[in-house]
């Protein structure tokens, strides 16, 4: 383990995963909020809202994330002149958050929409019959039931988000995969060791989280 005994290398390793953790957490919040709004739009009575939701999902779901992140750098930053922070790294970080959130929100929206479809039609009909409005139906009756059905899919969406956050490295953030590349190039004799540590860190975090979501999904499953 001589590579990681050098404090400079160890600090690089920590900072790489610190970026990943921050990207994942911040994007999770935005993706969840945007995704739920998009899902509500896609089932709403207003055609323009439905069309907007559908367009968002189809555009972002079918474009490679690499290209979306690329657009965030060249389109948002260079052409539109969007500047989110004076610090170069933080600026890239926020551009990455925008790309990851917009992309992941499309998948969150689809997860919720398929969750809404698992709620029996009788539930919404009963809600309407007692005079609830669209928002009340959605908020009080449908979404709480749909929310339980989407725990497992949302779990895989967010695990994927954690892995996808490495792609922000392609526009120059020194996150874990770029750090690994650098360490490999500097320490050709310890390639396996470096890979095992970086891949192992992801496995160590993501596999238990995957099982946790599976357990939660069973725990909260709606019995019908």
């Amino acid at each position, binding site marked *: 383990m001589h590579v990681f005994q050098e404090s400079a290398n160890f600090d690089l390793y920590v900072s790489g995963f610190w970026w990943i953790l921050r990207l994942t957490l911040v994007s999770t919040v935005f993706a969840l909020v945007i995704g739920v709004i998009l899902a509500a739009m896609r089932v709403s*009575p207003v055609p323009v809202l439905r069309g907007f939701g559908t367009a968002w999902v189809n555009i972002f779901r079918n474009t490679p994330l*690499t290209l979306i992140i690329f657009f965030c750098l060249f389109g948002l930053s260079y*052409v539109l002149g969007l500047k989110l922070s004076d610090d170069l790294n933080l600026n890239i970080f926020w551009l990455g958050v925008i790309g990851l959130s917009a992309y992941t929100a499309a998948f969150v929206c689809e997860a919720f929409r398929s969750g809404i479809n698992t709620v029996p039609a009788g539930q919404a009909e009963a809600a309407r019959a007692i005079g609830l*409005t669209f928002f009340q139906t959605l908020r009080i009756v449908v979404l709480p039931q749909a929310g339980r059905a989407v725990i497992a899919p949302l779990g895989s969406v967010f695990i994927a988000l954690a892995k996808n956050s490495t792609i922000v490295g392609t526009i120059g953030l020194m996150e874990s995969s770029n750090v690994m590349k650098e360490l*490999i190039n500097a320490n050709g004799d310890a390639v396996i060791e470096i890979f095992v540590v970086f891949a192992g860190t992801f496995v160590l975090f993501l596999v238990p989280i995957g099982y946790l979501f599976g357990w939660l999904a069973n725990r909260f499953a709606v019995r019908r």
Partner: protein
Amino acid sequence: MSEQAVLYDHPGPRARVRNRVLTVVFGVALLALLWWIYSRFDAKGQWEGSLWKPFLRAGTWTDFILPGLWNTLKAAATGMVLALAFGLIFAVGRLSNHWWISVPAGVVVEFFRAVPLLLMIFFIFYGVPFLIDGPVEAFWAVVIGLTLYNGSVLAEAFRAGIRAVPSGQTEAGYAVGLRKGQIMQHILLPQAARAMLPVIVSQLVVLLKDTALGYIVAYPELIQRGINELAANDLAQGGNILIPAAIVVALIYIVINSLLTLLAGWLERRTKRRGKAPRAEGAVPVIVDDGSGTGLGTL
């Protein structure tokens, strides 16, 4: 559509007015946003005809975009075949009755599902050459990375599909005297493959999108040829085609992936309608949502 319409009543006079107001307000806001983006691009001169003219030249397509698309499809097709084989082998391996097969197969699948694709590609492209004392072609770095990751996801899909086949099928197989391998081959796999077809197709869409990462290791796929090299070539002639090229490439990806997603949706409706295949719903909650065409893997 019928499930969704159930969420709200047929609009009365007040609801109609409200919906109309919402339509106008949101529509205006959306148009304003689009106009703002358009005018900012315009201010930077991105809509000037000279930037878009290169797309009328045959060379732009035959020298850059089409070869890039060809390489993307080549990597995707190779990756798809290998990932399907990988998935099949490891799904069956994980269901084996021998712990010395099922445990290692499970470890491999869980490991590669949790490791980001970019990390895999970097390891294969930059790390493996130190181990084998020779370079690794970018094509194989991309294809092997795609195979290991998507193969593991497919293995889980296959396994869930096999487990969703009613146990009576296996018992009937034993009753007529088939062996374990024969039951897997003749009874379980065909039914599982049919039930899981939509999931498999959406994972293949994910695989196609992930080939885009190839440009990080300079594999000449659609982004590398169609954006980076095209823009570099254009820059040498005094142009600035980067953003238009990126827009064109994005449209190509959207069209191809939409077609594949439509195919997945069509397959899903078709399997549901015939109702012969065992339905995976409920039995395998983790995978089911993949079936909605969300293609979670890469996501």
